[in-house]
């Protein structure tokens, strides 16, 4: 029998361990080493709402081509503890491998308190079916039966060697090095250039030379040992030339970058998962360079300020009510202002969003969706807030809704949200989600040179305001958009109120004026629908005349495109309409692609097919099939492929619920 063909640069790798033990940094080092070696990576982070001890893991794909999603299978599972093995060993492909600590072999499934009862029972059934016992060795034996290669790494022995080498008196001080041992062992059997790992360690631990050397020394020992144990692993990683510069970032960072580029100068937040990461990244980057002069942060003197030296202020507030109202107050001064939050925080912002809407304030709210309702699953993924964001607040108040589907859209929309908020003088809600926020990936540095800042109609001294012709904040004389003045501006004093108001901004209950003001506010939404370019509103992928069209929004874009690439290569005639502007709803653009489609397939990370409902409301077109998921784990490329194929063949129920993910 000839040996199986080698698979070069197409790998699904996983590392797991208890939260707080350094799993994050090991995945970071693995990914950076791959990126340094010219590979594309996509990493998905899963963790419990917990600080220490609960299970967390990273699923990471490394590929020679762009990857936008994770797959269900794992080719190489690396860990230094028992729980990860019990949880994930079954996900390892038959031709895969497991890096583990042989000292833990006698650990019993029942010894691990953090495994849920349902999973524990399921694992017991599995182990019985394989005719083995309940220990980790049994679990490994079951894997070996399938052909999985076992890579025992004596972590404790290696730590002892490092302790001797670097004269460390207590092993506990270097316990986190085990993570890098697992990474080193992984690269060993994958045959990847160890220099890339050293490079990544230097990148991650920067100034701490001793930490770099200790981790590198340990990792190299694990690397050599693993390579000697499994010299002919089917999966290989090889360096390829970096022919282009690539960004390596998370969705939170991408969104923050877009906001900064868009000129945001004020952001508020109250700590909440998964939204806080963005604000923390912004806090680290408060001092900004302007106009490419490379103004150094240390040059922040008065002269620097006169040159227009930039900065942004991030304020941690006492709650989300303060977050939304403080950002609104700041927006009134002319500063581009935003707040970022997740579901429970957004719930507290309703009244403030209504106030911004009736007062036509350019406010941006970045909403990082997570699994709800209530606290829900705070660290898990969902696209459950579309309807909520659309209707949030009492009464009827216009707002613009944009949902980003990938990192480039996060950056672009970060800027566009401010443009639309100012041009149409209303709140803009930017929908992102946990899957985008916490994933990291390499991506080609996007060309953003087409992006422009549009501050909308502004009140200027040229308007000739005087005592007899006073500035009116809600001037009705020239279309629905009244020139906007900011607090502190001379000659344009105005008033705001949460009550219905007259042109000056004073309270009114006049029925005729009420009608005019309602109509003014909503006319701006019509204007936005007319003016926002089609290529911002929607994106269509696939054959033009497809008889089957998928309709989706947000971060399902990545796994959908990866799954569709496979389906298209097999000849499937299926299109994909990615809706980015969700309010005002792009009716003509959606109809253009949906009107003739015989099979219309909604793909959404929620229970109720929320976008499908809006499509039906706005266009009268009903979906024929629904592929939905609401277990808190993002859709994978592979499960989408498996779900779409039968729909195209007419062999699928109307509603398919996806359930994969651990």
């Amino acid at each position: 029998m000839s040996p199986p063909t080698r698979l070069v640069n197409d790998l699904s790798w996983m590392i797991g361990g208890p939260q707080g033990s350094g799993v994050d940094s090991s995945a970071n080092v693995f990914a950076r080493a791959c990126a340094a070696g010219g590979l594309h990576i996509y990493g998905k982070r899963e963790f419990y709402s917990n600080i220490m001890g609960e299970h967390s893991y990273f699923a990471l794909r490394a590929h020679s081509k762009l990857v936008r999603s994770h797959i269900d299978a794992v080719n190489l599972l690396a860990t230094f503890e028992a729980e990860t093995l019990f949880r994930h060993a079954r996900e390892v492909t038959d031709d895969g491998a497991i890096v583990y600590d042989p000292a833990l072999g006698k650990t019993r499934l029942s010894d691990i308190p953090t495994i849920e009862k349902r999973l524990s029972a399921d694992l017991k059934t599995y182990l019985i079916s394989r005719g083995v016992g309940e220990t980790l060795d049994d679990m490994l034996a079951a894997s070996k039966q399938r052909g999985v290669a076992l890579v025992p790494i004596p972590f404790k022995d290696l730590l002892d060697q490092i302790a001797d080498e670097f004269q460390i008196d207590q092993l506990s001080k270097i316990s986190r090095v085990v993570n890098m041992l697992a990474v080193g062992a992984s690269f060993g059997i994958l045959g990847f250039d160890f220099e890339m790992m050293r490079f990544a360690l230097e990148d991650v631990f920067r100034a701490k030379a001793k930490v770099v050397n200790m981790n590198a020394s340990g990792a190299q020992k694990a690397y050599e040992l693993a390579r000697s144990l499994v010299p002919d692993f089917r999966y290989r990683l090889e360096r390829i030339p970096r022919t282009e510069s690539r960004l390596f970032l998370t969705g939170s960072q991408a969104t923050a970058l877009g906001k900064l580029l868009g000129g945001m100068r004020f952001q508020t937040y109250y700590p909440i998962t998964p939204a806080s990461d963005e604000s923390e990244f912004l806090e680290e980057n408060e001092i900004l360079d302007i106009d490419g002069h490379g103004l150094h942060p240390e040059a922040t003197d008065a002269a620097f300020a006169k040159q227009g030296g930039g900065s942004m202020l991030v304020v941690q507030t006492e709650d989300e009510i303060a977050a939304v109202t403080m950002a609104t107050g700041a927006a009134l001064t002319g500063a581009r202002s935003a707040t970022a939050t997740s579901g429970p925080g957004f719930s507290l912002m309703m009244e403030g969003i209504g106030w911004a809407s009736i007062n036509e304030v350019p406010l941006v709210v970045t909403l990082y969706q997570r699994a709800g309702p209530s606290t829900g699953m705070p660290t898990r993924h969902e696209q459950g807030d579309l309807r909520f964001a659309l209707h949030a607040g009492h009464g009827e108040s216009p707002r613009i809704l944009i949902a980003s589907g990938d990192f480039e859209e996060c950056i672009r929309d970060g800027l566009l949200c401010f443009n639309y908020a100012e041009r149409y003088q209303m709140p803009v809600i930017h929908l992102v989600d946990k899957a985008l926020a916490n994933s990291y990936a390499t991506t080609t540095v996007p060309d953003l040179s087409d992006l422009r800042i549009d501050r909308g109609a502004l009140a200027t001294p040229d308007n000739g305001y005087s005592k007899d012709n006073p500035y009116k904040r809600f001037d009705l004389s020239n279309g629905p958009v009244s020139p906007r003045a900011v607090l502190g501006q001379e000659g344009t004093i105005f008033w705001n109120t949460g009550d219905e108001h007259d042109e000056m901004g004073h309270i009114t209950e006049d029925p005729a004026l009420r009608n005019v003001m309602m109509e003014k506010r909503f006319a701006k939404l019509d204007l936005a629908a007319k003016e926002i370019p089609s290529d911002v509103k929607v994106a269509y992928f696939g054959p033009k005349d497809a008889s089957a069209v998928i309709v989706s929004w947000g971060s399902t874009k990545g796994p959908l495109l990866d799954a569709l690439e496979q389906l298209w290569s097999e000849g499937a005639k299926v299109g994909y309409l990615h809706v980015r502007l969700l309010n005002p709803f792009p009716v003509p653009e959606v109809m253009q692609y949906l009107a003739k489609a015989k099979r219309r397939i909604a793909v959404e990370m929620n229970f109720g097919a929320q976008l499908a409902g809006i499509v039906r409301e706005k266009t009268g077109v009903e979906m024929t099939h629904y592929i939905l998921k609401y277990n808190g784990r993002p859709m994978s490329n592979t499960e989408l492929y498996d779900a779409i194929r039968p729909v195209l063949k007419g062999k699928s129920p109307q509603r398919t619920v996806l359930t994969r993910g651990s």
Partner: protein
Amino acid sequence: MAVEQLLKPADFATEVHNDWCPGCGDFGILRTIQMALAELKMEPHRVAIVSGIGCSAKTVHYVKTYGIHTLHGRALPYATGVKLANPQLKVLCLSGDGDGLGIGGGHFVNAGRRNLDMLYIIHDNGVYGLTKGQASPTLKLGVQTKSLAHPNINDAVNPIWLALAAGATWVGRGYSYDIKHLVGLIKQGIDHKGYAFLDVLQPCPTYNDINTKEWYGGEDRKESNTGRPLPRVYKLEDQGFDPVVHEPGQVEAKATQALEKALEWGDRIPIGVFYKNEHVPTFEARITERIPTYMENPPALQPIVGPNGEPRTDLTRILQRLTFKAS
């Protein structure tokens, strides 16, 4: 516009019809705000007054400066946002007692933690006026004003104590029928470097029939020989009370005497400045530690767009850290 021409309180008045009840204590606060702004020679466009919801909140519509009438309980965070984004503005914040100490109580506490340079005035009348007279957080336990079905079942918060505990660095109390004194307090509060809190006793003639103008003025307890009323309200400064923390070591003693004075109620009600401490760094100063150009070049005043609409923010330095360059 020449500032000198704007020295009259009437220049800070709008033509908006004032719909407060006749005899409302809010009139005194409105008038004193206009007087204080005129006396301080404020340019109207450099002032923003932010209010919450209630009778007190309508004040902004009657003052000719930027006037932001916001949400119930939220005047403080809106005002904070305005001030933080443009610290060159003078910001006044107005609430009622229900507005500021009930629904907005959380913000009251957190504003003290920041010590942002602005004045916060609470119109304190013990009732929710605009919703027809329910008990507010400053109405005493057992008091039954005329629209209450039963005597008040909740005890009152002490705004002076709460402000001190929260960290306000200037704490005063005024009386809306003592115009001259109140103008002085508002001016001091505006001039204070840091977060100033002013509690203004403001009789509600419609719903609070207990703490009336007559009651504060002592009309119910006239001197037997002269027939003159014995006012309940008295001025701290008339007693030689020194509220100022002259050096940091005095904080404990000065705060203690302020707390003691703030316990007085009933027969003798102190007004004036209870506490003043400018040794605490303002929030602006704390931000400037992090962002040295903050005061000259705050968020509101930064240019963000080039002549052709191009973004001026240069992300090169940040992107460098996130980029794997082509090899």
